[in-house]
């Protein structure tokens, strides 16, 4: 089943048409990487998918349920029950956005308890186990400001995972990190891929994208220019724009 299906998504900011009809499906257990030059609309696409922005046109569907639809008059509408959809996805931000006044454990535990209304003790054990798994077992009591960037990003991944999303989005999860810290975060994402977590990853780490993805999407200027397996895209793309982008990238 498609976990996410986006069809002909359009989005403008004023006169600036940022998404010009983007369609994208993500199957269960699939890892999709999105690459593309700056300003191409990658973040905007993720923000539309995660309901941080409203789209101007197009259908978004999660697990077969419509988030947006056209009513009888042909007007685009959002589902009344957006809360339901918010449980389906998680998003990991470039700059983590951890809650600075919460300890690591509270950052991770609070939403499952106070949003999903789950049992505190049970959530606590789960979260401690997750933190342990991510090599953060000894940081549960620390505050975000006491952690390195890489550790903070791993905490924010655990925070997203603690909500047990069906799909996890990443918007350049390593771009705010010092080069020597990107590895630990990429390793965590790789381990999630091995566990068949459904993921959509916007990244500038080409080697990583090639290694971890089932599918790679190249977005430029608000449209999907090319889409294929990592080998299609990185190995021997036939598309001139893709080749140009990757070539600039390697230099």
């Amino acid at each position, binding site marked *: 089943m498609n976990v996410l299906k986006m069809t002909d998504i359009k989005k403008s900011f004023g006169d600036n048409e940022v998404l010009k009809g983007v369609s994208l499906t993500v199957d269960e257990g699939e890892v999709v990487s999105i690459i593309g030059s700056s300003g191409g609309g990658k973040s905007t696409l993720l923000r539309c998918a995660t309901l941080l922005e409203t789209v101007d046109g197009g259908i978004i569907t999660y697990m077969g349920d419509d988030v947006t639809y056209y009513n009888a008059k042909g007007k685009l509408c959002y589902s009344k029950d957006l809360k339901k959809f918010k449980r389906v996805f998680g998003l990991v*931000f470039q700059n983590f956005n951890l809650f600075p006044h919460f300890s690591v454990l509270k950052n991770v535990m609070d939403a499952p308890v106070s949003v999903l209304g789950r049992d505190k003790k049970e959530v606590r054990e789960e979260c401690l186990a997750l933190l342990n798994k991510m090599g953060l077992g000894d940081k549960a009591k620390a505050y975000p400001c006491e952690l390195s960037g890489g550790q903070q990003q791993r905490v924010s991944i655990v925070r997203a995972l603690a909500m047990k999303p069906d799909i996890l989005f990443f918007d350049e999860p390593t771009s705010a990190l010092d080069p020597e810290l990107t590895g630990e975060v990429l390793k965590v994402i790789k381990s999630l891929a091995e566990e068949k977590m459904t993921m959509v990853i916007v990244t500038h780490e080409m080697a990583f994208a090639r290694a971890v993805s089932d599918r790679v999407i190249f977005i430029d200027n608000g449209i999907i220019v090319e889409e294929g397996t990592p080998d299609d895209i990185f190995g021997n793309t036939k598309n001139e724009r893709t080749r140009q982008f990757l070539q600039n990238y390697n230099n």
Partner: protein
Amino acid sequence: MTLTTMIQKMSEGLGNTCAIFFYTLLFALPLGVVFALLRMSKNIVISKLTQLIVSVLRGTPLMLQLLAVTYGPYYLFGMSISRNKLIPVVIAFSINYAAYFSEIYRGGIESISVGQYEAAAILGYSKAQTFIKIILPQVIRRILPSVTNEIVTLVKDTSIAFTVSYQEMFTIGKQIANSQTSFMPFVVAGVFYYIFNALVGFVMGRAEKAMSYYKQ
């Protein structure tokens, strides 16, 4: 009059000074939240109107506002002047300080990055939960020093109540100064205010320390 009787008489007014102080904080701190929320309202009319009210409250002397609240109802509607002067004093002080607090709150709320709201939205927190659990604690931490400044000013401003002859410490001191033609009561008043503010500084310092368990 000996210095001891002077201090004793003025101390009797300290209760009333504290009454102005605590009642004003009690009402002005939450009223400031209301002003701040109205000011940040998406409704332009409400927002602009609140902005105007706040700017008048901040741009005219508290003494004038106090006189208006105390005697305005008499001149405008022929209502009798309230015998318990604490009521108009607290009303005038609360509204005036709420205006100052509201601007501090607004600055604090606007200084929180959108990322905090977005992270909360993604996790499914409701608007109320986001504000109370995520935003407000961070705002309080940030604005505490500015709020302390206002509270220190409030301690000193309680003396303005002498303009409507409310029997607080400074009013009594001024009466003694007049009847005894002595400067001493003002010295005593100065010492009282200084000690009061030393206490305020101590309490607020503790509060700031208690909240500084994380770096912002």
